[in-house]
């Protein structure tokens, strides 16, 4: 790794043998473990659905309209976080912070819409105890929502830290936060058709 790269990422996070910042590799490893978590859950859902014959009646009660709005919100937040990453790489602190804040706001919007959707479903009597479909539905969307919440906390922390003297030391972490956030988006890209369309 060049001296410039080491200066950018810090000695503690860079090693010659990988030619990659260890922080980046660490995030990818973490995402790999997350793939197994969501992969196992999605696989179990598919198998249970095949065994149950489709769950067409249960699926008819999910709110596709709110899910479409939420998909647009999450996809847009992926755009804002990659713009934050680009701005951080260009050392444009102001723009990076603006896009990070936008990502936080969009993440909060996603959770608000999801909460509203839950309230409608519970009001109609569809709780995790109603049937296996609803149990899967709440588990998968709940776990995903938890990941969105963690992403919001990470992005908000970075936004606040980026306003101080720590910026040169932490600016590359915008990329790591972005990788995590995009992964959360990719998970939703598959949850949306699984639970609302197919």
């Amino acid at each position, binding site marked *: 790794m060049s001296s410039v790269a080491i200066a950018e990422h810090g000695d503690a996070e860079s090693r010659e043998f990988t030619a990659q910042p260890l922080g980046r590799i660490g995030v990818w490893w973490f995402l790999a473990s997350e793939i197994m978590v969501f*992969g196992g859950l999605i*696989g179990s859902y598919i198998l249970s659905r095949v065994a149950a014959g489709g769950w067409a009646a249960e699926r008819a009660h999910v709110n596709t309209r709110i899910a479409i709005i939420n998909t647009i919100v999450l996809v847009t937040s*992926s755009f804002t976080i990659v713009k934050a990453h680009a701005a951080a790489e260009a050392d444009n602190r102001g723009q990076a912070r603006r896009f990070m804040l936008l990502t936080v706001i969009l993440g909060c919007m996603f959770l608000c819409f999801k909460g509203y959707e839950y309230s409608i479903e519970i009001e109609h009597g569809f709780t995790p105890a109603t049937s296996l479909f609803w149990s899967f539905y709440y588990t998968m969307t709940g776990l995903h929502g938890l990941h969105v919440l963690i992403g919001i906390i990470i992005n908000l922390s970075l936004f606040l830290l980026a306003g101080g003297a720590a910026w040169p030391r932490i600016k590359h972490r915008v990329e790591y936060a972005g990788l995590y956030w*995009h992964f959360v988006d990719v998970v939703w890209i598959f949850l949306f058709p699984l639970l609302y369309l*197919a």
Partner: protein
Amino acid sequence: MSSATKPSVGYLTIWVWLIVLLGVGVALLAAPVSKTLAVTLIFTVASVKAFLVLRHYMHVRHQPLMIYVIIGVPVLLAIALTLVLIPDIAFR
């Protein structure tokens, strides 16, 4: 952004494509095709969307082989786990 990760396609263009593909996926629900074909197409569209995010937003194409291995192995394991169990469920 470093020259290695400079986007060849604009981020906004990719966002537009993701929204268009979302529309296509939703429109397939009402398409006059069989349920099996509609579901296949819906998941094909979802896979294309995931590919766009991975390639252009997560910059996977600029990552070394090691990252492909780290991510590829659990993806293959998750798919294999589901596929090997489907016959047991479907033909019980």
